[in-house]
């Protein structure tokens, strides 16, 4: 059966290739050779040769599948077939640089609750990680598929760059024609770009399970590729200790620098992350846009990359009722309004981009959306470039495709007008062969004709819309519609009942349109055949064609929505400015020896605290803030936070993951940042979760709301890293499937950490050994492989990076301190440390600091001995103590968390305030810059309505670096304007007709917010916790899978 089908297909292909020009060049020709004329002349066309260059009244000649000439009123070779394109336009065939034509996308088979899979299945030269398959050359898997090709051709595409979209390094794509021929005739570029993403796709291997894990894996893999190139073939393996393995994936990755990479980062923030990652390797990377680029266009522009833009915009949010509106955020409404301007914004900022059909749920939306983009300010020239020259370059075929100049392949699109306005695609030529969508007919029957029947003068009015003729016969007020029975080229046959005009019955007309006249005959009801000719006059203007094409781009769309950074409610429309301020007459909690100073003034200037004292005079130009009755503290610092992190807080797929870095995944769009500012927090250490003994690197940020991820980083803070001990790392509460990873006991935790440090030392020694070799020896010797995981551990050993260890019980605290002492470093901070009070003396001796919860306990066995007096007992023993939030909620009120120690163990208020200011500053090693009110420190300040530790006080203002980031009064005003904006946007949607959701529903289709790709859903990051250990990529694929199911059900 299968064989039969195949042979039928083969037969069909053979048949086609026989009847057309391109026979299999290296194969045999069976039967008679085809030598028919392969020259076609297209005349009277508007030819868009390339973006910005149009020839009117052109003659386009193609020969043997290539363009041989295009000239204004060019002469027509005698041997050519002539096709009159009067009234038509010709565009270069469109190229989709990011498709999965033939190959498809990854289908995950993941289900929740599956046991973890730590090791990959290796065959041949595959990489260790199953998400890396750079060795695949997709060209070898290519064979065309007519039906799938139609998805593209119907929108005017002639060429795609394609690979299977699956995994991190997805292999080398291939650029192919969408024509139907033998594969070898269709391959335009066998060595196209590699494709990649952060998403591990169908890989079932646990690592990586987070975005930062994927970033680390890419970093290590690119470094490995470089190493592989150097090490492979070296004869001496003294240092590596083993032969250099054969690794096809690494070998192939070395061609990235020559062919480039198309990378789907899945969102614009991750594009910036990827850019930072790839910059080091000097690679040519093209990113898939997520449609939000306009919100951070400056950063996007700074990537100097080309983008591939899905022609996909969000549908109208459902705001049909109060109830529906409850699920719709201002951010969604704003994006609905402005998303179609994204391509125009890219163009305006000279960011090159190409369009793709990728991500479109319904390909019929493609042109609707391109036109929408044009209506939102994208010039037709840029739009055309995004469909032709830019993708041609991206696909490595600029020398043969993307333009209609002589020598180029005859891939082009014929439309009946301006395609960016309302021109419809009539025909697509692929390699010189026509794929007809609707017949090209230059016959325009429209007009008014005079009929004289039985000496009655009747008017025949014909209209033509999208080829189809309709019309009626009229006399006076009476009219009778005609019924067209046949229409092809210049032939038109119709019937019409003329009884209304006292003409006793149905007449049948058979006509041809020639020289602006209908010529033919009609049959009377009595079947008499009567000839007639009538010249068209008063040509009825075809409304659809009379539109002013140029009107589209020039009409400026108006937006109601604000554009803020981040572009959501409470984003900033402009960044706060540094101010010189005189705070007058406050109660100042210095967090210094000076303690609490009453009736005190503070001057700030240039982002720093200038002076503190009583009755200071106001320097000129300083703004005065009367703080009488108010209190000022240093900005609150949170040692332990998981806000502002994207796509996974744990890389919990391995016991040691020092190579991952929270700094790679800072999320500046997290609303928790603004909310924390409203609670007086100015600095936070963003920690990796607690799923493994050695987790990832941490990132200290200042809560500079409105800036980008890099600008948020507290640059002066030294590196730090998260360790974890106890129940979480031994997977005690992860379920029965998680019992195989080492360690499962506190004994194992201790030894695996030791083992890691031994490996780090060994690694360092191997480099020293290598560096000591003479140059000639080095030439023969395979160098050690750079290992990011171990390099980070060495930073700890060298006191360049500091450990913050999640810990609860006394035993594990002692063990870790012992390890550190044995390896010659110190644990900087024990975080959570709920049994710190039991070993406070030892901690003080070791030199460790402590950051604890104010009063959490009883949620798991290892916190059953937790007590709220922990802070006091540790402090009494000389340990530096802070309280932390580990929560996007508590970070909003760390002041009352600190106050709990006053309640539960009689801590002095000045010590309590230190627990959230100078003490955590010391723990993060930023106490030189912030954490107390002292001259020359950063002006990170909080103005409180009263005693900052009281339940009854509120933050009035929060300042960072002398810039005001939060003001309660301004916040109240912003709410009003946001509410107004939201209402206006809702009105705009409602007055624009029905919300598309209801429209979709009536078609039994997916709802508005998922109607398109899921990249447009305003997904909010969750409130991450230490213990949120799950596989982000698996989650995402199960999500996508559900979509696919939905789709299949439609």
């Amino acid at each position: 059966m299968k064989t039969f089908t195949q042979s039928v297909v083969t037969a069909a292909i053979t048949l086609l290739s026989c009847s057309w020009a391109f026979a299999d060049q290296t194969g045999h020709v069976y039967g008679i050779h085809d030598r028919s004329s392969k020259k076609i002349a297209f005349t009277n066309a508007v030819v868009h040769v390339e973006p910005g260059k149009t020839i009117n009244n052109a003659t386009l000649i193609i020969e043997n599948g290539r363009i041989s000439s295009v000239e204004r009123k060019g002469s027509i070779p005698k041997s050519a077939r002539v096709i009159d394109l009067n009234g038509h336009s010709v565009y270069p065939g469109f190229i989709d640089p990011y498709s999965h034509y033939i190959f498809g996308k990854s289908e995950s088979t993941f289900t929740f609750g599956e046991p973890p899979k730590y090791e990959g299945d290796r065959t041949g030269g595959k990489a260790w990680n199953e998400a890396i398959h750079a060795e695949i050359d997709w060209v070898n898997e290519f064979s065309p598929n007519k039906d799938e090709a139609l998805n593209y051709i119907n929108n005017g595409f002639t060429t795609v760059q394609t690979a299977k979209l699956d995994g991190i390094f997805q292999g080398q794509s291939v650029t192919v024609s969408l024509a139907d021929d033998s594969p070898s005739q269709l391959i335009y570029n066998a060595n196209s770009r590699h494709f990649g993403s952060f998403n591990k796709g169908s890989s079932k291997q646990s690592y990586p399970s987070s975005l930062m894990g994927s970033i680390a894996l890419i970093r290590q893999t690119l470094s490995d590729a470089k190493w592989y190139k150097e090490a492979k073939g070296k004869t001496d393996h003294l240092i590596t200790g083993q032969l250099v393995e054969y690794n096809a994936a690494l070998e192939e990755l070395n061609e990235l620098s020559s062919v480039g990479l198309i990378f789907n980062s899945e969102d614009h923030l991750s594009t910036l992350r990827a850019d930072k990652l790839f910059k080091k390797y000097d690679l040519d990377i093209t990113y898939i846009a997520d449609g939000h680029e306009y919100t951070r266009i400056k950063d996007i522009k700074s990537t100097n990359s080309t983008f591939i833009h899905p022609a996909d915009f969000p549908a109208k949010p459902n705001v049909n009722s109060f109830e529906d509106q409850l699920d719709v955020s201002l951010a969604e409404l704003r994006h609905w309004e402005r998303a179609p301007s994204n391509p125009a914004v890219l163009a305006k900022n000279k960011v090159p981009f190409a369009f793709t059909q990728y991500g479109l749920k319904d390909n019929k939306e493609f042109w609707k959306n391109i036109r929408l983009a044009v209506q939102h300010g994208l010039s037709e020239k840029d739009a055309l470039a995004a469909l032709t020259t830019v993708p041609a370059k991206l696909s490595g075929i600029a020398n043969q495709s993307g333009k209609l100049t002589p020598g180029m392949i005859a891939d082009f699109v014929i439309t009946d007008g301006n395609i960016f306005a309302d021109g419809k695609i009539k025909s697509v030529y692929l390699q010189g062969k026509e794929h007809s969508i609707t017949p090209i007919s230059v016959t325009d029957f429209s007009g008014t004709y005079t009929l004289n029947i039985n000496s009655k003068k009747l008017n025949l009015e014909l209209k033509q819309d999208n080829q189809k003729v309709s019309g009626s016969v009229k006399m006076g007020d009476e009219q009778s519609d005609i019924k067209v029975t046949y229409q092809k080229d210049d032939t038109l046959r119709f019937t019409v009942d003329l009884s209304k005009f006292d003409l006793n019955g149905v007449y049948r007309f058979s006509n041809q349109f020639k020289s602006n006249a209908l010529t033919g005959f009609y049959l009377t009801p009595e079947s008499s055949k009567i000839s007639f000719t009538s010249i068209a006059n008063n040509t009825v203007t075809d409304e659809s064609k009379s539109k002013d094409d140029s009107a589209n781009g020039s009409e400026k769309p108006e937006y109601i929505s604000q554009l803020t950074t981040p572009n959501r409610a409470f984003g900033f429309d402009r960044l706060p400015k540094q101010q010189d301020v005189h705070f007058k007459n406050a109660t100042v909690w210095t967090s210094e020896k000076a303690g609490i100073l009453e009736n005190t003034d503070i001057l700030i200037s240039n982002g720093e605290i200038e002076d503190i004292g009583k009755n200071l005079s106001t320097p000129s130009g300083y703004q005065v803030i009367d703080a009488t009755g108010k209190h000022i503290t240093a900005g609150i610092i949170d040692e332990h936070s998981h806000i502002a992190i994207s796509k996974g807080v744990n890389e919990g797929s391995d016991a040691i993951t020092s190579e991952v870095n929270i700094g790679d995944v800072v999320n500046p769009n997290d609303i928790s940042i603004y909310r924390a500012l409203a609670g007086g927090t100015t600095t936070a250490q963003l920690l990796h979760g607690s799923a493994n003994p050695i987790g990832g690197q941490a990132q200290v940020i200042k809560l500079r709301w409105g800036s980008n991820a890099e600008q948020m980083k507290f640059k002066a803070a030294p590196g730090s890293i998260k360790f974890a001990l106890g129940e979480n790392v031994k997977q005690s509460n992860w379920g029965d499937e998680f019992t195989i990873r080492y360690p499962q006991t506190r004994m194992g935790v201790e030894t695996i950490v030791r083992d890691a440090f031994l490996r780090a030392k060994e690694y360092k020694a191997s480099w020293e050994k290598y560096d000591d070799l003479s140059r000639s020896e080095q030439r023969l010797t395979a160098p050690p492989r750079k290992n990011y995981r171990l390099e980070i551990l060495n930073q700890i050993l060298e006191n360049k990076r500091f450990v913050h260890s999640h810990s609860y019980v006394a035993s594990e605290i002692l063990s870790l301190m012992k390890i550190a002492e044995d390896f010659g470093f110190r644990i900087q901070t024990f975080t959570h440390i709920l049994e710190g009070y039991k070993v406070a003396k030892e901690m003080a001796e070791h030199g460790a600091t402590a950051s604890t919860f104010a009063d959490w306990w009883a949620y798991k066995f290892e916190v059953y001995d937790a007590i709220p007096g922990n802070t006091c007992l540790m402090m009494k023993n000389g340990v530096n103590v802070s309280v932390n939030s580990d929560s996007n909620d508590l970070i909003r009120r760390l002041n009352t968390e600190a106050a709990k120690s006053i309640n539960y163990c009689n801590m002095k208020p000045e010590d309590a305030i230190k627990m959230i200011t100078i003490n955590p500053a010391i723990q993060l090693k930023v106490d030189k810059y912030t954490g107390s009110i002292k001259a020359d420190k950063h002006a990170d300040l909080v103005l409180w309505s009263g005693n900052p530790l009281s339940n009854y006080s509120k933050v009035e203002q929060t300042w960072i670096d002398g810039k005001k980031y939060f003001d309660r009064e301004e916040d109240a005003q912003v709410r009003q304007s946001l509410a107004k904006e939201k209402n206006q946007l809702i009105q705009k949607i409602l007055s624009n007709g029905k919300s598309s959701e209801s429209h979709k529903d009536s078609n039994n289709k997916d709802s508005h917010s998922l109607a398109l790709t899921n990249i447009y859903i305003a997904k909010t990051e969750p409130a991450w916790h230490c213990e949120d250990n799950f596989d982000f990529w698996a989650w995402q694929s199960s999500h996508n899978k559900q979509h696919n199911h939905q789709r299949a059900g439609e």
Partner: protein
Amino acid sequence: MKLFKMKTQLIAFAALSMSMFSLAHDLVPGKNAEHPIVIRHATLHTVSQGTLVNYDLLIKDGKIAEIADTITTDSKVREIDATGQHVYPGLIGLSSTLGLVEISAVRATRDQSEVGSMTPEVKAHIAFNADSELIPTVRSNGITHIEAAPTGGGLIGQSSVMHLDGWHWEDALVESSVGMHLRWPSTGINKSFWETRTPEKQREDNEKAFDSLHDTFEQIQSYVKARKNNKEQAVDVRWEAMRPVFEQKIPLFVHANDYRQIAQAIQFRDKFSLKIIIVGVYDAMKASKLIKDNNVPIVYSHTWGQPGRSDEAIDVAYNTPAFLENNNIPYALAIEGSWNIRDLPFAVGHTISYGVSKETALRSVTLEPAKLLGVDDVMGSLEKGKQANIVISKGDLFDHLTHKVTYMFIEGKEIDLNNRHKKLYEKYSNR
């Protein structure tokens, strides 16, 4: 008299020190007082009669015997000089799993949630562990009573009023089966990252869940009718447990936060003629008219709540109690949880900070909850004849800076204010 006071304090201190040496056993429940107790010169936060400054309060036979500016007593009275101190009715923690779960990560210690989505037959007090180490840490902050309530989804089960001092659950039980708990099916579209279903699927599931709940209630309704009119009708323990709900003898505590859930619950109430109390009520501001027009009692549990929608203001949850007060909508305040309900006094302070009057704030954790639980005739305010459930604090109970509970009485019995935390603190202070 002065001497007596000193003695009392000495005794109290001695008791405290004694318990330090006790072998981490649970504390001994309070005993009936030998003599009447008079609390003198205190600021009485009566709830029902405002704040009385420099007043005396007499406890006799476990009840409040008298409140007056000066109470004269015979010599066989224990005197407590509470000059400058504040006296409150014991706080009542609604919708709590205290005593039902010891360590939430340890399965063996979890008794708060029965399997299945329709378990109206289960009763919280049955599993209440009066010896839970958590209880003394909660009551030492001023909470004398809780509504022990099971948790979970669907029709969850019955709650009971417990006092936080007893030898076992029967001893701690004040009133059994005071309400039935139901978690309202979700009505909104979850766009958070965890949600893997499409909006359609969610909408569909929401509809299904509602329909299924509706079917169940119709089924219960016909069962209740059948039981009433047909002696032969076999007993179904699930639906039998729902009879008091359908006969309006006990309220249905509906856990609902979204406006649409609240609206649906009210429609349900009217359709099936139920008494409902809505718990959670995040959208109370949006639904204030609905709540007020329909006279729905509510328990607000989002004192420190995060904005529930991404574009909502930072303090929308904080401001809700004051909004309710300003709109004359009575409410009770709750923290749903176990160990963390010891923060209840500070939740009250937080609502005061965001505009609630001190009187309404106190009422929201005393008399309002007592009303909802049907025990306001015996507790919830300082009134003659009510149970002597009393908390004395050196300063304002609702701010960490001043909160210092010095005495607690439950039904006139003095409560040991020691707890696991204090004991461990003492132990390691001596290291």
